[in-house]
């Protein structure tokens, strides 16, 4: 399994988020930031987790709500960065 497998990446990210916050029945496309229960501590934790777990470097231009707004968006961001690193 690797970051090439979208469902594997989504599982890891979903598990991390479920351990961090208490959202009932978190859907992969659910907007975390619209839920109102995430804060800057969570954003720091999520970006740090993505950098360490998947070995991707998050630049200033990557720090955008669109890249981290949901489980799916974060997994897609990891896939894009991993593909860039591999190319």
């Amino acid at each position, binding site marked *: 399994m690797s970051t090439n497998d979208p469902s594997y990446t989504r599982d890891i990210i979903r598990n*991390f988020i479920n*351990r*961090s916050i*208490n959202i*009932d029945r978190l859907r992969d496309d659910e907007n975390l*930031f619209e*839920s*109102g*229960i*995430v*804060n*800057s*501590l969570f*954003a*720091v*934790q999520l*970006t*740090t*987790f993505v950098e*360490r777990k998947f070995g991707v470097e998050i630049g*200033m*231009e990557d*720090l*955008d*709500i669109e*890249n*981290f707004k949901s489980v799916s968006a974060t997994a897609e961001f990891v896939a894009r960065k991993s593909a860039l690193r591999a190319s």
Partner: protein
Amino acid sequence: MLHGIRAIAVDTSEKLLDSARVGILQAVRVAPVLSKSAPRLAPDETLARIIFTTRLEDLAGCDFIVESVTEDWFIKKPVYERLDRIAPAAVCFGANTSCISVTRIGGVTSRPDKVVGMHFMNPVHMVNTVEVIRGHHTSSETLAVANDLLAELDKEGIVVGDLPGFVSNRISHVFMNEAAFVFQDGLATAAQIDSIFKRCFSHKMGPLETADLIGLDTVMRSLDVLYDSFHDPKFRCCPLLRKMVEAGECGRKSGRGFYVYSNVGC
């Protein structure tokens, strides 16, 4: 930092200032993830806007001072007595108190007309409304200065009167405390209690996860202030809440409270 206002941060030790520096850099870095309008600042740009110091005297040149020390009268009181000697007479003090009366704070200074409560809500850069408290002697001019500062921060104040706990914490802490009693009595799990509030009342967060986010030690101290102020048993801190604090289970920041947080320090 995000609004271009230069600031001086004072804390009691270099270790705490180091921690604040890291926290501020992290919060500013991820601000664009939380808000589309937030600027993207490099670490050196952020650090150029803030001075970190352990000397309260370094605030002598500030236009406005926001105090946010621990919610304990015996800690707050000497801080205000010193600030009153240090700051020029025209400078206003914004007390980011969560329960202690603004009138009581103003009473230990020589400028009670220039002390105003400014209860910022967490996460501060995402919540655009601030509970502004008018103490018994707070002047209209001071309220105007506070509102101008909030406008610079793209925030709006709701001005309320002054009794301990004001509006927000006088009500919310009864909610959180009673939720802790319900949990202690074994009526429901923490998740069930919070789910009732979220799914039945459409609250964004339940009372127990809110308590975990604020910090159970802070909630306990605020309840103690409310109890001591009103002598009303409805503010009696739930024994389980006190026991959890004594056991070091203070919520998110310590990794365990009503919930377990396995990502602390990740």
